[in-house]
C-alpha cells in the first residue's frame, strides 16, 4: 500500500474531530470556495480562528488555497483525502459477520435441518 494512505486517513479523522474544522469543511462543501472573511461572516467563529484552522487544513491537504491577494485568498475543499477516509470506513462497514450469519440461516432453511452452523 502507498506509505501515505494511512497518514491521509488519519489527517481526515483528526480534522473532523474538531467542531470548528467540521464547520469550516461543511461550509466549503455546501457553499463552495470561500475566503476566511466569508467564512467568518457565516460561522460563529472569529476570522483569526478561522485563518488558523484553514492554515492547518491546507497544510494537511484538506483544503487548497487559490491564488489571490492576501485577504482575498479563497479556500476550496479537496475531496481526494475524504475518499481515502471513506475507504477506511467502508472496510469497517462491510459487515461480513452479519452476511455469514444470514448465509448460515439460509442453508439451514433450505436443508430443513436444525443443525447449528
Amino acid at each position, binding site marked *: 500500500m502507498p506509505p501515505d494512505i494511512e497518514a491521509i486517513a488519519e489527517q481526515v479523522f483528526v480534522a473532523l474531530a474538531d467542531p470548528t474544522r467540521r464547520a469550516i469543511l461543511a461550509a466549503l462543501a455546501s457553499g463552495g470556495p470561500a475566503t476566511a472573511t466569508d467564512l467568518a461572516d457565516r460561522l460563529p467563529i472569529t476570522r483569526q480562528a478561522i485563518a488558523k484552522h484553514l492554515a492547518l487544513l491546507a497544510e494537511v491537504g484538506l483544503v*487548497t488555497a487559490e491564488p489571490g491577494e492576501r485577504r482575498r485568498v479563497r479556500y476550496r475543499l479537496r475531496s481526494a483525502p475524504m475518499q*481515502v477516509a471513506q475507504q477506511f470506513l467502508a472496510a469497517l462497514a462491510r459487515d461480513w459477520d452479519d452476511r455469514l450469519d444470514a448465509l448460515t440461516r439460509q442453508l439451514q432453511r433450505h436443508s430443513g435441518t436444525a443443525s447449528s452452523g
Partner: protein
Amino acid sequence: MGFPDRIERTVELAHPRASVWAALTTAEGLAGWFGNEAQVDLRVGGSVQMAWTGGPATDMRIERIEEPSVFGFTWHIYGLPDDDPRRTYVEFTLEPAGDGTRLTVVETGFAQLPEDAYRKAFDGNTEGWASELGELVEYLNAA
C-alpha cells in the same frame, strides 16, 4: 491506526460444498442471504448484479470460478462515488470439513491507492466542478 486492507472470516457450515456453492453462485442462492434480488452470469468476466429492497444495488465482476472450491469477484467500494474506479476483491474458499464445509471469505484492496491514482483523483476533483461550471457559462454565453 492500522488501515484495514484485508478482511477475513471463516465459518463452519453443516452442509456439503455443493449446497454452499449454490448459495454463493446462483441467483436463487444469493437472493436468499446476500441481497434481495440477484442476477448471475456465471463465467469469468461475467457479472453478478445484486439489489437490496429500498437500498443500494451493486455490480460484481466474476474473476475466479473453480467449482466447488473457489469463487472470486471484484466489486465497488460501498460509500465511494459511483464513478470511482477502485474495487475490492472478494474470494470465497470452500473446503470439506467432515460432513460439512469450512467457508473462508477474504476481501482485500481497501488500502489500494497508487500514487498516480491519488494524483488523478485529486486533480480531477479540484478541477471537476470549476471546469464544468466554466463550460456551462461558455455554453450559455454562446447561446
